């Protein structure tokens, strides 16, 4: 994988996002320029309302920026039609949300293969097995989401995000609803995907301990990038956050 280390999986160019119009308008992003290296695990942090989710949504093609560009690989997704954007999400992007990640009528296994089924692609059995084994959910594959714990559900969501080998996985507070043990399980799983399989992950989190699993932490404040940290640890992050909030 060493040759791809320098490759950029996604990047933004002076991204601006304004919600609403006139006096009531809110500038959620005020010119964000960032790069996400392939096979890197980035944590995005910052106070509430600083624009983390907005950034992630713009990156994932779920929301259209007011100004600026978003590239996934070499493709400028701000110019894509709705149909192509949908296909891009299906084929190149994986998601893990904070909650409601799974379709209740499908089993865990079916939820994992959902993006492939939607695309009508064949499941790569070996890769599927590998992903499933790292989640430790092999014996739960035929269960419906309501029969799984919150942590298990999030790991299923993680497996789903990985199974189609997307170029990049976005996660918005994936541990937000989990206790510390379940959080650790999910984060270990995500970390493993990066280390062992060269997956690119961008994760929004409030939790310094969660961010410490990442290779790099980006700090947002008031819609702008205010700091960055390589190989963050929980203590350093907490210190940095304290200084930001003051």
């Amino acid at each position: 994988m060493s040759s791809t280390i320098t490759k950029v999986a996604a990047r933004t160019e002076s991204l601006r996002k304004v919600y609403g119009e006139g006096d009531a308008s809110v500038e959620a992003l005020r010119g964000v320029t960032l790069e996400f290296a392939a096979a890197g695990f980035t944590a995005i942090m910052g106070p509430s309302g600083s624009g983390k989710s907005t950034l992630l949504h713009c990156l994932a093609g779920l929301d259209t920026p007011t100004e600026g560009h978003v590239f996934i690989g070499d493709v400028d997704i701000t110019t894509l039609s709705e149909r192509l954007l949908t296909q891009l999400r299906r084929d190149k992007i994986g998601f893990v949300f904070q909650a409601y990640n799974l379709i209740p009528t499908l089993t865990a296994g079916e939820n994992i293969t959902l993006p492939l089924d939607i695309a009508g692609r064949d499941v790569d059995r070996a890769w599927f097995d590998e992903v499933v084994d790292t989640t430790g959910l092999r014996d739960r594959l035929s269960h419906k989401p309501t029969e799984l714990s919150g942590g298990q559900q999030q790991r299923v969501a993680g497996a789903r995000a990985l199974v189609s080998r997307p170029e990049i996985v976005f996660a918005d507070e994936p541990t937000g609803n989990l206790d510390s043990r379940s959080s650790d399980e999910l984060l270990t799983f995500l970390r493993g995907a990066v280390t062992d399989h060269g997956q690119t992950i961008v994760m929004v989190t409030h939790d310094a301990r969660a961010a410490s699993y990442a290779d790099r932490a980006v700090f947002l404040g008031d819609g702008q990038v205010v700091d960055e940290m390589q190989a963050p640890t929980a203590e350093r992050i907490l210190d940095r956050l304290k200084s930001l909030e003051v």
Partner: protein
Amino acid sequence: MLRATVKSLLARKLRLVLTALAIVLGVGFTAGTFVLTDTALKSFDDLFGQVYANTDVVVQAHQAFNPTEGGGGGGGGGQELNPIPERLLPSVRAVPGVRFAEGSVQSFAQIVDPATGKTIQSGGAPTIGSSWSPDLSPFTLEPGGAPPVGPHEVVIDAGTAGDHHLTVGQQVRVVTPAASDEYTISGFVRFGSSNSLLGASFAIFDLPTAQRLFQREGTFDFIYVQGDGSSTPEQLAARIAGVLPHGFDAITGTSAASQQQDQVNQGLGFLRTGLLVFGFVALFVGAFIIFNTFNIVVTQRSRELALFRALGAMRRQVMTSVLVEAAVVGLVASVIGVLVGIVLAIGLKALVAAVGLKLPPTALVIAPRTVLVSLVLGTTITVAAAVSPARRASRVAPIEALRESTAPSSSIRRRVIVGTLVTVVGVGSLAVGLFGGVSNAGYLVGLGAALTFVGVAMLSPLIARPIASTLGRPFRGRIAGKLGGENANRNPRRTASTAAALMIGLGLVTFVAVFAASLKSSVTAVLDRTLRSDLMLTASQFSPFSPQLARGLSSSPDFSAVSPLRQGAEAKVGSSTTFPVGIDPATITEVASIEMDAGSITGLSEPNTVAVSRTEADGKHLAVGGTLRMQFARTGSRRLTVVGIFEPNALLNDYAVSLGTYDANVAQQLDSTVFLKYATGVDQATARANLEALVARDYPSVEVNDQAQTKATYVKQVDQFFAIVYVLLILSVLISAFGIVNTLGLSIYERIRELGLLRAVGMSRRQVKRMIRVEAVIIAVLGALLGLVVGILFGWAMQRALSSVGIDRLAIPFAQLVFMLIVAALIGLLAAIWPARRAAKLNVLEAISYE
């Protein structure tokens, strides 16, 4: 709490509109029926008023009872009255206070359209022949015309003339009981303000000509009297009655009008009841949709309701809030429904006119009763359907506000018990209604059918899951289809009750299809078994024709047997109405094989005898040698000796008498059918060609059919009738389609996050639409399957109940039922259009962050 209700109503406008639509249509149809029939009644009222405007007193023969004029179409003009001897006219004229008195005769007269050579008849409207009354005419001559004078002139109603482009001075052929001849049109008449009397055609001759043509030489049907104003019509009538011999009445013009009005009332009463049934079915289907919608909404609002409860709202307040919502929806929908009904009545009026019943241009009659009944009905049904959801809402515990859960639903066990009970009671009252021989059977059958539908609907969630899974199987190959199938399965109650609404409409369609197929199959089988004639002469639209045709043919060497049959006059046995058949006992056995249980049909050649069907004989405990009393309108009660008991068949109704007995008691002495058998050795093709040429020239209304054609004609008539029934049932099917739209719409709203997730992970809009469509098709086909089962059951029960009157074969029209399933699937697809579009249009971001 009330404020919250109103707010929640307004917040869900769309749901309100969709829910209300079901009630709007049902109420609309009901109100439309009332408006239409009231308007028709008013038109008739006005008309009869105009017809008798100049007439103070009418003299006519005494009638044993007032026969229902009616629905049955027919040649018209055939009053079931004894003739009045001409010599009574001078004595009536001599009564003090009489200014004018005129004799009048009426019969049928078919005008032949010179352009087509066919008799003119619009739909089922009568073709009336009448004599011209110079002084008391209810008709007004149009300018440029003259009254008919002499044996070669005729006056025609302006409506018929206008429709068929006839002109004064033109020659036109008119077929009357005694002749088929050409006449010169001397003028056109109108009826007060209207140029047509409800679509009937009129041919009016001068009195002597009319008497000859209608075979009333030396007699009248009526004497119309106008007073000189010196006494009231009542006094005048009493005075005239004094000079009349026994068997004749003098009644005032007003009461003659109201007598006719009564006859029309009865006919319209049937029409009203018939149409109302469809309106009620529509409302019944609407009730299911209301029930379903409110149930879903209560589920979706569980948390909100729980919050109210946590904040201190009483159970009763919660329940009231749901019921108030229902009442508002019901009332608003009913008000709109009444307006829709008025528009619908205009449409129905045009439709009825297209079938031949042209109502004069009277303003629509919107009776207070129409509005009241419609509003009460619509509102009550809506509230009643919401009671169970409201009770469920009131059982939401305050703690639910904190939990991720929904309103409790009744236990499966209770549902099974209640559902089974309702089904059993429904099937039971259906059975009693059909087989129990009780009075008011119609209500019992209706109630039984409704309860059966409700019971099956209650039980259907139990089977909805397996059936829906099976139905979903073909779609499982692709993810959108699979998800659609799973969605249909995820809430079996919701799926089942949505399907149940469709079940009702399609169940009734199936029932009608099975019944019609059984009827056709049974009757054609009976025709095969019974008919031995080679040819049958029948008149189009069942109107009878002159016996001269048969008389002429009986001397023809082409035919070995010529056997006329007469039918149409109403008679009474005990309190029940029947239509006896007049036959020629000497020839009937040559043209028909009639299975006798006892006695013989030839025994009818004795006067005052009757043959009775086995069913009727069993029901009335009649045996050969016994007597029965039959009451005729014209001659009153007659004692008839039973000479034979026959197996029910297609030709003879319950009672058969000889032509002699028939003519002795019935005024309208016309043939309805003539059966012919070729003589041996005759070239049949030539014989038929000659016959057809004769008929085309002199009896243009008569059709010549061989056996196969007779069967085909019969089948066509049945199909035409049931086509109307299908059209009326479409309304309920349409309403249930709205039910599917509504359920899908509400479900989407509920699954908004899920849709967002699917779109986020790359599901295309097209796939989302496909998913919704699959769900809709599964619901629709499930409803159709349930409808098929219930409908076939109903059809079978009906066939069993009517097997004694000759519907002795059960026929299940498989091709038609398969077609119906396909149509159901299409309905599902149509119903999915809007919800699918809505789901596909969802903003992904808003959907995933939706709280």
